[in-house]
């Protein structure tokens, strides 16, 4: 298991995970995505693999394509509209996110960062809940870009399932490193299932895209073995 996580079992919505009473039970438990606590019983709300970490954090890992915006996640968005001082960004959720022109490094009221429609933006969601429309920024708390901002031209962006995106950015997963043995490339992965790849030649970019798409159907170990062969064949 990657990263100290333990898979417990497959759960369906309505399945009882455990009963928990804050008064009687000993320690506290933490519930992550896909679990609900109702009437003293913790139940699954999604179909997926129930996982737990060593620190009593339980969650359901679901394989899905639709992104639900979550605060503090890094996503890749596409600029769709300019409304005065705000840009509307499509992040793949039900509502478009907004980003202010001041949310870029070294931006001030005098020096604006002008974005064209269709530009790709890599940023962090600072507001994302069911009540409000999502908001994105491309700076951190200290006004530094930290890799966020407009993605350069010439790359290719494609969609993957959310679990594939989470898998490849996991520091314990060697997949992206394996690919780098054959090709020199830049990759940006958004938690909204969008991956952007840029390499020197177009056929390398297409080859890398197909390698990452392989992870939709294979385990990371199998993909690791086949990746180099596939790159050889496609390039």
């Amino acid at each position, binding site marked *: 298991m990657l990263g100290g996580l333990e898979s417990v079992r497959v759960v369906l*919505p309505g399945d009882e995970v455990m009963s928990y009473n804050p008064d009687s039970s000993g320690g506290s438990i933490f519930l992550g995505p896909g679990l609900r606590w109702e009437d003293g019983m913790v139940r699954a709300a999604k179909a997926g693999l129930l996982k737990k970490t060593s620190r009593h954090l339980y969650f359901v890992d679901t394989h899905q394509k*639709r992104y639900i915006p979550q605060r503090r996640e890094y996503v890749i968005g596409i600029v769709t509209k300019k409304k005065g001082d705000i840009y509307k960004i499509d992040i793949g959720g*039900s509502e478009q996110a907004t980003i202010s022109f001041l949310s870029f490094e070294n931006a001030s009221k005098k020096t604006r960062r002008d974005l064209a429609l269709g530009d790709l933006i890599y940023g962090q969601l600072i507001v994302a809940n069911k009540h409000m429309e999502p908001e994105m920024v491309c700076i951190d708390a200290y006004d530094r870009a930290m890799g966020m901002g407009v993605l350069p031209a010439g790359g290719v962006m494609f969609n993957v399932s959310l679990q594939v995106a989470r898998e490849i950015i996991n520091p314990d997963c060697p997949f992206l490193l394996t690919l780098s043995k054959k090709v020199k490339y830049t990759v940006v992965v958004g938690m909204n299932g969008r991956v952007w790849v840029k390499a020197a030649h177009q056929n390398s970019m297409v080859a890398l895209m197909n390698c990452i798409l392989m992870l939709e159907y294979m385990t990371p170990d199998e993909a690791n073995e086949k990746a180099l062969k596939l790159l050889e064949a496609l390039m």
Partner: protein
Amino acid sequence: MAQHACELSFLSRSDGSALYSIGLNVALASVNGPGDVKVSNRLYNRSHLEVCYSPSTGHSMIRERALESVIMRTVEQAILVHLHPRTAINITIQEMQSDGLALSASVNAACMALLDAGIQMKTTFAAVTCCITPSGTVIIDPTEAEIQESVAEATFVFESSGEASVLTAHQDGRLSYEDFKKCLHHCQVASKDVFAFYRRMTEKKYQNEIES
């Protein structure tokens, strides 16, 4: 009980989809959402659910509207709609083959497609159809021919959690109170098999991850 089969993520462009068959009845369900919604349908505190049912032959008419209504009310009880205000969840069902169990196959396909899409739900639900012959035998998952010969047919949709309550009941024909209870009991027992089937299908979907 007839053979159930299902293929998840059948459609590449939908958020979730399922091709579900019960015997010779086949239904394809596609779920998209939670996504954008027209201003006229926007609800401040919950998601707007839309069901679209297409028959295998002919145009969509009153029968399809009735099926959409039944499926909508069933699905509404299972999905946690208050988690996604101002969005819409679209469920589209295409009847591929029908041999009398169109409603059951469609409801089960919708449930599997919702699980595939990762939409949060209170419970899963399973539909079982039965018919009762003139001699009083209850047949689960009858064929169209068996339904024609029967006195009455009934479809019940059960939930998996808690006391397996009935979410939807649809009955056609003349049933005495005792016969109705008999049908309900047989269907409830059969629904356990359907839930077990859902579990096997979900385990198959996550097989790759369990193995690694």
